[in-house]
């Protein structure tokens, strides 16, 4: 993965820059020791590493503003970082960049059940937002798999999704307002505890802008009351086509499950060996979960099971109690861990129209044979958000490159059938150079024009999202 050549002039001024930063931050909030900066050398895309020039950990919006003002004045690139769980390299630094971590910003500022909102500092983890309100029956809906660790700041930057967004939407649908610091240090307030503002939807374009437009320090989030209960049903089919048709029929029948998860045979085998959840060995497995009271769940599951039966399932297992529900989810929830035990893997998240599922799964199998790398598929089927896991050996020279090449082919296939490169992980550095597959130059120009307005010097997370040669003149300006 190519990164821009670091600016030697900036690196040579490190001592001076650190000194300036210590003027506005406590000493221990500026990390410049070479060994300590290694803690920030990568994120969840750990195949790529580079220690930053230094890292700063401001504890307030004012401190974030002071830091950005200095970096703006001295023309130093800044890479914002939530918890560093990005799978796309969104928080990966360059040697001439300051990492701005929001980890110290983790307070709950306001909670209102009457207005169904919570205002938090953005270093707070996703799960701990729900943690702050769940004793009163409320929750924050977006649930990325990394929710124990990932920060709201990163969720906003990447517009994170999760398994339950078929019903509840992704981050952008649950974000009401932000306090954001612009690269020049200006603090802006956008939105608030109310719903849609008039005027241009700046909040909408900030969410998912991968830390390139500003650093969000506070966020107002929508919270919802928890449903009375939830229950999954597991169904096995002897082909992916049939499973895909079943998903489509469930949706067409007017049932809106809270989640529809899909696993294919390679994935089932690995998960079963790891978690021993008692999954049937079949070509495709669906986990469909619905919510409500016991009677409401029965009513929905009855309809879902009736539809499933028309597709001749090889297995149909309804959870009768919490223990059985747990076992149904066990294999799915341990899928990534199980794969990680067996092998190194790369997880993609291209999204496709549900109708193209059989074609894409066949295409992935063909690519798997062509490249000689195994692939397991586990994904959010209701919204077409694929998660092909390509297995490779990190210690075998050339294997990572081969895996990346194959990943690129899969993503091109996703775009070809009407889908997109990334449904929830973000572009980062990982998919940056594939943007031309999905967009024409004029489309990318329109997106870069937005960054020109928010960050005219292109200092915030500059080497991400756009192909390097496409953003070259702007970054060099």
């Amino acid at each position, binding site marked *: 993965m190519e990164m821009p050549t670091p600016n030697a002039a900036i690196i040579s001024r490190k001592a001076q820059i650190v000194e300036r930063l210590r003027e506005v931050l406590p000493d221990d909030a500026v990390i410049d020791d070479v060994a300590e900066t290694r803690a920030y050398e990568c994120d969840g895309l750990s195949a790529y590493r580079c220690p930053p020039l230094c890292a700063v950990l401001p504890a307030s919006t004012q401190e974030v503003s002071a830091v950005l003002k200095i970096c703006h004045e001295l023309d130093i690139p800044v890479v914002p970082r939530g918890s560093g769980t990005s799978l796309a390299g969104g928080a990966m630094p360059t040697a001439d960049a300051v990492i701005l971590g929001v980890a110290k910003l983790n307070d709950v500022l306001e909670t209102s059940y009457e207005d169904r909102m919570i205002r938090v500092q953005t270093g707070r983890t996703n799960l701990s937002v729900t943690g702050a309100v769940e004793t009163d029956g409320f929750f924050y809906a977006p649930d990325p798999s990394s929710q124990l660790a990932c920060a709201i700041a990163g969720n906003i930057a990447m517009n994170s*999704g999760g398994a339950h967004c078929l019903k509840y939407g992704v981050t952008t649908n649950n974000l009401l307002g932000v306090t954001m610091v612009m690269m020049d240090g200006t603090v802006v307030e956008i939105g*608030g505890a*109310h719903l*849609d503002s008039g*005027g241009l939807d700046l909040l*909408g374009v900030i969410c998912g802008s991968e830390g390139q437009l500003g650093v969000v320090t506070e966020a107002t989030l929508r919270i919802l009351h*928890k449903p009375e209960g939830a229950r999954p049903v597991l169904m096995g089919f002897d082909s992916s086509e049939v499973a895909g048709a079943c998903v489509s029929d469930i*949706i067409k029948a007017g049932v809106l499950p809270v989640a529809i998860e899909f696993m294919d045979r390679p994935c089932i085998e690995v998960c079963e060996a790891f978690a021993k959840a008692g999954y049937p060995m079949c070509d495709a497995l669906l986990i469909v979960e619905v919510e409500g009271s016991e009677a409401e769940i029965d009513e929905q599951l009855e309809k879902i099971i009736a539809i499933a039966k028309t597709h001749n399932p090889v297995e149909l297992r309804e959870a009768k109690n919490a223990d059985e529900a747990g076992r149904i989810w066990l294999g799915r929830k341990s899928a990534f861990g199980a794969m990680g035990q067996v092998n190194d893997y790369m997880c993609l998240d291209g999204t496709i129209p549900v109708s193209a599922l059989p074609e894409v799964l066949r295409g992935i199998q063909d690519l798997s044979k062509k490249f000689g790398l195994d692939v397991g598929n586990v994904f959010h089927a209701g919204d077409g958000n694929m998660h092909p896991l390509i297995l490779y050996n990190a210690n075998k020279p050339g294997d990572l490159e081969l895996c990346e090449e194959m990943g690129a082919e899969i993503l091109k296939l996703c775009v070809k059938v009407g889908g997109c490169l990334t449904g929830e992980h973000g572009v980062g550095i990982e998919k940056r150079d594939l943007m031309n597959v999905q967009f024409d130059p004029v489309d990318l120009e329109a997106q870069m024009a937005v960054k020109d307005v928010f960050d005219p010097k292109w200092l915030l997370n500059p080497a991400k999202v756009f192909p390097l040669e496409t953003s070259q003149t702007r970054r060099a300006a």
Partner: protein
Amino acid sequence: MTPRNESEVAAAIVESTGPVRVMGGGTRPIGRPVPGEALSVAGLSGISLYEPGALTLVAQAGTPVAEIEAALAKENQRLAFEPMDHRTLLGTKGTPTIGGIVAANVSGPRRIAVGACRDFLLGVRFVDGAGQIVKNGGRVMKNVTGYDLVKLMCGAYGTLGVLTEVSLKVLPRTETQASLILHDATPEQAVAAMSAAFGSPFEVTGAAHDGTETVIRIEGFTGSVAYRAGELKKLLSAFGPVDVLDDAEASAARWRAMRDVTPLTKADGDIWRISVRPSAAPGMIAGLPSGSTYMMDWGGGLIWAAVPAGTDLRTHLGDTSGHMTLIRGTADVPTFQPEAAPLAALSAGLRAKFDPNGILNKGIMG
């Protein structure tokens, strides 16, 4: 100008010598009067793709909303954000278009539960002010590939580009619905009741107050609706006697009226739309000038107010944390809530990028 396709829209923009007034069906004359020659997208019409099993519909910007709703109804689906029809309130004629709905980010009562138009918009194609054809987003439900210009275009009133095609997420129609009705509540009591309903696990999909009655909607399968109606009736009894309207047709008619703000259609004066946190709504209603009438939607998060003509309601109410829009009226004030200086600079910067010659719906959002 009535181009028949996207390239003709682009050509019309390139060849224009002055400002251009972008039009859908012309049923929502919101915003300042706009100079220039009219460019109607009515000629760009038709559903280009509809996959019920994928909950996705793609249509040309000038497609009549009624045509889309009819196509969806055939498959037992709908536009879940329940877009308001402004014709009754604004006394307009014409055919509402899907492009108009997107350009004005028009939603209705169900917005509180499922999201606004912008939340259901998956992709756009548009012609910018320089005549370039741009696409963003797509037709899949989860998409974080690049910046979300889809949201930016939604509610931009055509000032960043002329929408040519929109891609929407649609949802199944529900089997049935019911409404619970509380009588004679004050704004405080109404908001408290509506908040209690939303603070329950019973999946309320609408909560409005027409000035006297507070109406709370639930939708879903028959058994589920009956169950939740019973539970909510118990819960809401704390606020007074509760009637259950379990005739689905009658309930739907009630909500169409709420959606189209019919409680205010006969009111004189100016009409304001105020987006506010629900807990602040009663205070704001108390502060309306005498002679005003109002209704609340979104559990109190949206106030519609009819106030004496010419009132500058923002000044009258003083500083508020919400957002006030003049929908119909004579007051000589900005239509939209003025933005703080740094935000106004960002908005102006974006307009200058997408419409470098300043020709698209010039000043409409001023």
